[in-house]
């Protein structure tokens, strides 16, 4: 960390010197770009124009931190606001709006000390009362937050969200201007990580009260992040400029950042190639080969906190009460071939459910170590035991949402099942919202495509998904022992014991095979050679204040 900061400081100094000596003119045109070495003669000279343009996937639904949900909005909100806790470029948790904190021995009371120099973008000091106001607004049903359930670990949060208690009963109290106390219902080891989420951000109370729902418009929005909202043209761009009042503004290099909502990945790639984008969010599978051949040095792939999996409908035949049949299907998928030939962008074959998260040991079953031939033999045995054969093959319905990528994977897996077991698979694709509805209803028997991106870097965000009362439990998996292990883990203050309980739960669940893990997601970015400051992290969170543009 210190080495990086000095490096950045040096860059700033070089840029200032270059500007003083008049060495930097207007940025070069596209033609000369390719001939000029990036970063000038020293390789570290900054460009005179510090403008970063990123693709951001979908248009954010809102920039109200308490109502926002989804990756696109979160990316922008990380620049506009700063939570009590922030993240280093590599994903480590570092002080944000709070400079220090204390956690009680039982892990249920957090006391935060806000930094002295914390300022809103209009110059007002950031106080503990602002955070208290923010948390209360976040759980207030009148705010219409879609994500407030993430705050349920806080005392009374659930009751307030459900309208049973008023917002001022929330376990968040400003003890004085700079001290904030948060009381939890149980030890929640991932709570600090949660504080980087936008539902926990403070908002500027005066501007919320003056402008109501419109306080997030450009010109109204007052934030405490490194950037302020300059312009928002829906479906065109969102432009942020650096916030001169930000406490760490002297270390900010990028002056202007543009977020473009380009959902069509082919269009995105064309605009990246036309030098209209410096940074992309995702990539089309079918273009990966071209990218690897032509601009491999601009491709950044790293593990991401997500699992791609299939959920099997346990409430209907053929899967109800048939764990051996479910196992047979899980065994017959050659994940190495799939991730190498079909997805082909570094996805990690998954034999278990939870990706590699901090403080948790992954739980691959014994057969993860077998060869595919051994797996196939066992799959065929289990298939026969379940009462199916070449003469009496299993006929499966397979549901996925319309998308080229999902289709390619579904076709490959269906043909593996056909080859190894003789299963007849009927593929059915539905438009996104229709698909969500069908999957939720659990009225369609068979297999449904699924995926889960963790909310925070802790195994619980995955384990809880298969609890019998979880809305997201698309298989309909209901196991008392599993639920009991989860409850015990939630109440366990000792980190290692807690992890052991969740690991036991995962083993139990995988034994029943209500889901078939396929692969762990990776984050994929194309980044122009002149963009510096990028570091991969498992949450794929990137703060613009850590980036800089080299001379090119």
């Amino acid at each position, binding site marked *: 960390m210190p080495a990086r900061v000095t490096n950045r400081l040096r860059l700033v100094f070089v840029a200032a010197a270059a500007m003083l000596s008049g060495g930097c003119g207007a940025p070069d045109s*596209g*033609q000369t770009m390719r001939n000029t070495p990036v970063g000038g003669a020293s390789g570290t000279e900054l460009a005179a124009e510090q403008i970063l343009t990123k693709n951001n996937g979908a*248009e954010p*639904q*809102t*920039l*109200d931190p308490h*109502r926002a*949900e*989804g990756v696109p909005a979160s990316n922008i909100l990380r620049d506009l606001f700063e939570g009590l806790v922030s993240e280093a470029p590599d994903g480590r948790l570092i002080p944000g709006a709070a400079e220090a904190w204390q956690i009680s021995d039982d892990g249920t009371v957090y006391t935060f000390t806000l930094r002295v120099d914390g300022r809103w973008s209009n110059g007002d000091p950031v106080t503990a009362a602002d955070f208290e106001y923010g948390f209360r607004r976040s759980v207030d*049903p009148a705010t*219409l*937050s*879609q994500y*407030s*359930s993430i705050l349920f670990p806080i005392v009374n949060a659930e009751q307030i*969200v*459900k*309208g049973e208690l008023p917002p001022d009963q929330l376990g968040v109290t400003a003890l004085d201007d700079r001290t904030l106390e948060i009381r939890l219902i149980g030890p929640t080891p991932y709570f600090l990580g949660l504080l980087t989420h936008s539902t926990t951000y403070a908002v500027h109370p005066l501007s919320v009260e003056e402008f109501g*729902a*419109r306080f*997030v*418009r450009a010109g109204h929005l007052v934030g405490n992040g490194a950037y302020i909202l300059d312009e928002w*043209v*829906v*479906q*065109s*761009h969102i432009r942020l400029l650096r916030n001169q009042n930000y406490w760490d503004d002297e270390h900010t290099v990028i002056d202007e950042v543009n977020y*473009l*909502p*380009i959902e*069509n990945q*082919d*269009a995105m790639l*064309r*605009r990246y*190639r*036309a*030098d*209209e984008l410096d940074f992309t969010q995702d990539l089309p599978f079918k273009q990966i080969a071209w990218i690897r051949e032509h601009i491999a040095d601009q491709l950044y792939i790293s593990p991401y906190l997500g699992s791609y999996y299939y959920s099997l409908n346990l409430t209907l035949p053929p899967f109800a009460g048939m764990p051996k049949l479910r196992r047979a299907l899980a065994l017959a998928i050659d994940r190495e071939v799939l991730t190498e030939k079909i997805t082909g962008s570094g996805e990690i074959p998954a034999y278990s459910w939870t990706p590699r998260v901090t403080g948790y040991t992954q739980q691959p079953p014994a057969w993860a170590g077998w060869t595919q031939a051994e797996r196939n033999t066992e799959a065929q045995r289990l298939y026969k035991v379940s009462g199916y054969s070449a003469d009496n093959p299993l006929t499966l319905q397979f549901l996925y949402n319309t998308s080229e990528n999902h289709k390619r994977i579904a076709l490959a897996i269906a043909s593996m099942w056909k080859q190894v077991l003789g299963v007849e698979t009927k593929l059915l694709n539905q*438009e*996104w*919202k*229709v698909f*969500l*509805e*069908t999957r*939720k209803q659990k009225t369609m028997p068979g297999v449904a495509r699924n*995926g889960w991106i963790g909310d925070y870097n802790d195994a619980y965000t995955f384990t809880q998904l298969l609890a019998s009362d979880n*809305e*997201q439990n698309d298989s309909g998996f209901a196991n008392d022992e599993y639920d009991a292990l989860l409850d015990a883990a939630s109440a366990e203050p000792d980190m290692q014991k807690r992890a052991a309980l969740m690991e036991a739960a995962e083993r139990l669940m995988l034994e029943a095979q209500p889901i078939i893990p396929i692969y762990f997601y990776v984050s994929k970015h194309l980044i122009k050679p002149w963009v510096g400051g990028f570091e991969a992290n498992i949450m794929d969170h990137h703060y613009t204040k850590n980036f800089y543009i080299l001379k090119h």
Partner: protein
Amino acid sequence: MLRFALKRVLGAIPTLLVLIALAFFLIKAAPGGPFDTDRRLPPEIEANLQAAYNLDEPLYRQFGLYLGGLLKGDFGPSFQYRDYTVTELIAAGFPVSLRLGGLAMLLAFVVGVAVGTVAALKQNAFTDHAAMAAAMIGISVPNFVMAPLLVLVFAVTLKWLPAGGLGDWRNFVLPVVALALPQIAYIARLTRGSMIEVLRADFIRTARAQGLPQRAVIIRHALKPALLPVISYLGPATAAIITGSVVIEQIFGVPGLGRFFVQGALNRDYTLVMGVVVFYGVLIVVFNLIVDLVYGWLDPRVQYQ
């Protein structure tokens, strides 16, 4: 003529009502709702959201509430862009679409008529065959193929023009051309056919017999009657430009109404989809009326009753 216009406007009201009702019940019939995401909501939160947007009311009441709002000129809040009302979004998107569509229409008309006239004058010569072959290609290649091709050549390879987005006039060149191309082709073929017919008419022969120069014959006598089929095609052309812009705006990332419409439908943004449908409905009714009036000016035989 004023009475005719008034009658047409009043006659459009039932049409619009049917349009609104159809669009309203169709989008409500689509499975899934605006608040469905891959991350499911706890039931209490979902109920709270549904109530805030009146989605918990019976369908006929929702329709009544929507119509009531429309009468007051209120399109309601957007479900997808929660910081904006539909009226604000249309006000932001329409000027962009209008510029894109208007320029494409102008380009299609001017170039189409010019190419068609030249082809008609050089009937069966090389110029004619070349122009008509190009037109055939223009009509048959769909714009979702043409647009990425244009980007690949002019933005990615030559780097003359931006590949998309909103900025100065340069950002408009490729989308306008991509949108206009099929219309240029169609209008050129229409003009050529009707021009050939007009050039064989007796009054043209008379004009020539009087010794008028070729230019005067074409511009003063032949063009006006030859344009009649083109003018009546302008109504359908507007519809084609509007539907075409839905695709073009997606490809070039132009923040116009077409893009709002597509995103709105995919996201079940009921109010935004309805708003765009109603807005375009009114627009097309008005435009058809204008075409009818222009037609009468061009062809004195047309009577308004």
